[in-house]
């Protein structure tokens, strides 16, 4: 069944490669969406029944063989990918134009979806690496889709390619170290033998694997590629990368740490959680100050994945502190947040694509007033942004509440390092909550409200039906998880038990809301929603009853200003300016002011240019010097081969003498 889903998606790739232009887009999208839905179905069935699917053949992949196994943990991530994948396919029908409709781009797109479905199912080192690298390859090429029009895409792709390859190398080495003493390379073998490895070896392997997966997940300081690559990809691809591909990093950490290495030691998970804390804060901070809409979303991904990692790390640490129930709770929170994030971030990236198509820009400083021309997109953005801001009764809130429950109850553990991590997690959760609110109030408020700041924004029109359907599809989880999180409790219990490799009695009981039994916590989002809606309805009725007339349209007052142009509005840059000042030490903004005076008097200015840039300080201070050193090394190495045959002969002569001295 799952293989059928994979092959349908793969056939979509083939169709995309062979069909002529017009049917190509539609057929591949239809097949892709069908395959994704099928995969969703398989994943759901596994999550409902708890059974495990396995498949092995030695006829594929020479020397190593090919194995797939889907357990509930994998199924959860397949559910995440397939849900977003289906939306991305449908979205692409309306979106694909120009380069994105080319044979190569479309088939790479479908291939990307295949790998996203297959990575959580891979159950041997070689199979995992195969799909992992295919995933990297296809997404990497997709970033380059529009490279002729967006030169930035090339540099972004270079960053992404280099970092993802280094990450894959790290993962590979870690996994191989695990297999080295165990015999087989299937996950079952590794898991069975890993306890026989020495503690140092296991820790070494885990750190390597963690580095690789954390880089894919976009954890700071390994995130630098992410805010470059995600924005440059075509929007359906960005949506998949940001929602599903980063989740694969999380999946890898859970799979290796909890399943293959049986939980390891506490400090592993403390490290994971600390990565999460740093990522959450750094991502949130940069998201508030980004003016490029997709860059903002990308940094927000770093933020949310940070929270997920806090949950995963907390779960691991608690499990190692003999608190399986609370660990289960934290893991559940992390998994729920993964799904919630996939949906709302997917929707937001798709919306960003819709906006870019409609206005020709994704620079918030050039947008404005889109709510009038693109009401459906605006609604999608409001719901998804609300979810990401953790507005109660939307998905982000339910997930973050669960996470907070896990962290708070983690306080009762005796081990001080663990408690400190829990505390840092709570602080990160609190701080990112506020910062995320700023970022997304800015994104929606500047992008959709007020007046258009450019002609592109002024002439925007609502997107095509398929794009709206896809965006709408992705808002469903934001609402459903938010309003009736209890629906997901049984599925999450299975996935989380499978993730932690332990069958504990889940503290979560199923209801319309979520009740953490024995631990004294509950939310009833449905009831809250009823309350909110009822109050609003009453208020609406009340205001209507006061006067029968509709509100009169007048010019904005603006403290009595007569002239008010769109240029006088606050922009995204100015909106974030106070926060940028507050966090100047971390963000290190660079501002240039250039004043040109009129010739007659220095007291009058002819023009004033202000430029404000925020570069990723970790990139500037950490990566750039490294690259510079490497390049210098490369340039100096060229002198080795200076063309003199005498020198070349001397190399060999010295080698010969060394051989004689050493051997003789």
């Amino acid at each position: 069944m799952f293989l059928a889903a994979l092959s349908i998606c793969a056939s979509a790739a083939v169709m995309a490669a062979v069909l002529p232009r017009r049917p190509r887009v539609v057929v591949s999208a239809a097949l892709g969406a069908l395959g994704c839905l099928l995969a969703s179905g398989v994943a759901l069935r596994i999550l409902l029944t708890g059974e495990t699917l396995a498949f092995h053949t030695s006829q594929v992949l020479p020397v190593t063989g090919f194995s797939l196994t889907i357990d509930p943990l994998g199924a959860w991530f397949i559910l995440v990918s397939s849900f977003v994948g289906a939306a991305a396919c449908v979205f692409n029908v309306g979106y694909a134009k120009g380069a994105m409709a080319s044979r190569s781009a479309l088939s790479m797109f479908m291939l990307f979806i295949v790998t996203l479905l297959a990575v959580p199912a891979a159950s041997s080192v070689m199979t995992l690496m195969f799909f992992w690298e295919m995933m990297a390859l296809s997404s990497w090429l997709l970033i380059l889709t529009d490279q002729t029009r967006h030169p930035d895409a090339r540099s972004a792709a270079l960053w992404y390619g280099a970092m993802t390859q280094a990450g894959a190398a790290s993962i590979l080495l870690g996994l191989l170290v695990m297999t080295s003493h165990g015999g087989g390379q299937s996950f079952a073998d590794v898991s069975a033998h890993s306890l026989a490895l020495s503690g140092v070896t296991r820790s070494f392997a885990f750190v390597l694997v963690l580095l690789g997966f954390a880089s894919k997940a976009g954890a700071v300081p390994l995130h630098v590629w992410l805010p470059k690559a995600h924005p440059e990809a075509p929007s359906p691809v960005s949506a998949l990368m940001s929602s599903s591909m980063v989740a694969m990093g999380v999946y890898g950490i859970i799979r290796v740490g909890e399943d293959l290495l049986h939980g390891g030691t506490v400090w592993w998970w403390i490290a994971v959680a600390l990565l999460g804390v740093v990522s959450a804060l750094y991502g949130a901070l940069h998201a508030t100050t980004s003016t490029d809409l997709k860059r903002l979303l990308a940094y927000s991904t770093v933020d949310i994945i940070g929270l997920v990692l806090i949950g995963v790390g907390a779960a691991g640490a608690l499990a190692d502190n003999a608190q399986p129930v609370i660990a289960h709770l934290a893991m559940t929170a992390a998994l729920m947040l993964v799904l919630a994030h996939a949906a709302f971030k997917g929707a937001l990236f798709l919306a960003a694509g819709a906006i870019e198509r409609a206005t020709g820009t994704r620079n918030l400083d050039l947008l404005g007033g889109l709510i009038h021309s693109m009401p459906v997109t605006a609604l999608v953005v409001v719901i998804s942004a609300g979810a990401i801001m953790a507005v109660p009764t939307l998905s982000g809130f339910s997930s973050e509440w669960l996470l907070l429950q896990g962290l708070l109850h983690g306080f009762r553990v005796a081990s001080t390092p663990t408690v400190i991590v829990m505390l840092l997690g709570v602080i990160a959760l609190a701080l990112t909550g506020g910062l995320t609110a700023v970022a997304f109030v800015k994104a929606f408020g500047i992008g959709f409200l007020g007046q258009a700041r450019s002609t592109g924004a002024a002439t925007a029109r609502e997107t095509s039906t398929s794009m709206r359907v896809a965006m709408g599809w992705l808002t469903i989880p934001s609402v459903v998880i938010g309003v009736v999180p209890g629906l997901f409790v049984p599925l999450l219990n299975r996935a989380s038990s499978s993730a932690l490799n332990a069958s504990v009695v889940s503290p979560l009981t199923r209801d319309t809301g979520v009740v953490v039994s024995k631990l004294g916590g509950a939310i009833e989002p449905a009831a809250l929603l009823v309350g909110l809606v009822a109050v609003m309805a009453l208020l609406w009725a009340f205001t209507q009853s006061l006067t029968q007339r509709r509100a009169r349209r007048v010019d904005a007052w603006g403290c009595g200003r007569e002239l008010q142009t769109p240029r006088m509005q606050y922009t995204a840059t100015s909106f974030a300016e106070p926060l940028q000042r507050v966090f100047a030490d971390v963000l290190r903004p660079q501002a240039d002011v250039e004043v040109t005076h009129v010739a007659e008097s220095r007291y009058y200015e002819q023009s004033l240019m202000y430029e404000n840039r925020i570069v990723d300080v970790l990139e500037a201070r950490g990566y750039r010097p490294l690259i510079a050193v490497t390049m210098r090394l490369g340039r100096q190495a060229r002198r080795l081969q200076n063309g003199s045959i005498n020198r070349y002969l001397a190399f060999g002569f010295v080698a010969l003498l060394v051989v004689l001295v050493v051997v003789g």
Partner: protein
Amino acid sequence: MSTTYIASLELASGAVLLSAVMTLWRRGVRSIVTMLSLQGIALAAVAMVLALHEHERALLVTGALVFVVKGLVVPTLLRRVSRLDPRSRESRPLVNVPASLVFAAVLIVLAYVVGTRITSLAPSHATHLAPLGLATVLVGYFMLVTRRRAVSKIVGLILVDNGIALVTFLLTSGVPLIVELGSSLDVLLVVVVLQFLMVSMRHHSDTDQLTEMKALHD
């Protein structure tokens, strides 16, 4: 018989190494080529002596072949080249002549040290002389590394080859004939190729670029 055998073997083998050192010492192409020719003849003599001593007919054939190829043909070819290029004196080697000679001495010692490890497997009068061949290889290689002129390169290559041939004769009384034939032909061919290249290059470009070929580099 035995002492004559030993004496002649030692004389011929010593001559091979000595002529190698002499090529390092001399600068004029003509005298170097003469040394090379002498070396070829000495090498052939080694083969002949061994062949007579061990009654190896194949080695006799090899000796004759070596005499023709290394004693006559190759030097003749080289003389033709040097006539084409009368200026090709090794006027400015990378390591000057006295230092080269000192270094050659060091190399000979090294060859001796290494050689003893090899000869201890099957000690005999012949194998004891094998370090001389090894030393010739090293001296030849040293010449390749330190001499700039193209002709010197060819000479160095031939020295290395002669050294290896000497080792071969002394240690094993010759490898199977087919291999020996092949290797001799190959040496000849290499020399022909090199000569061809030199001539073509000279025809191709006016300036004498052979000494400083550094157009191709990173």
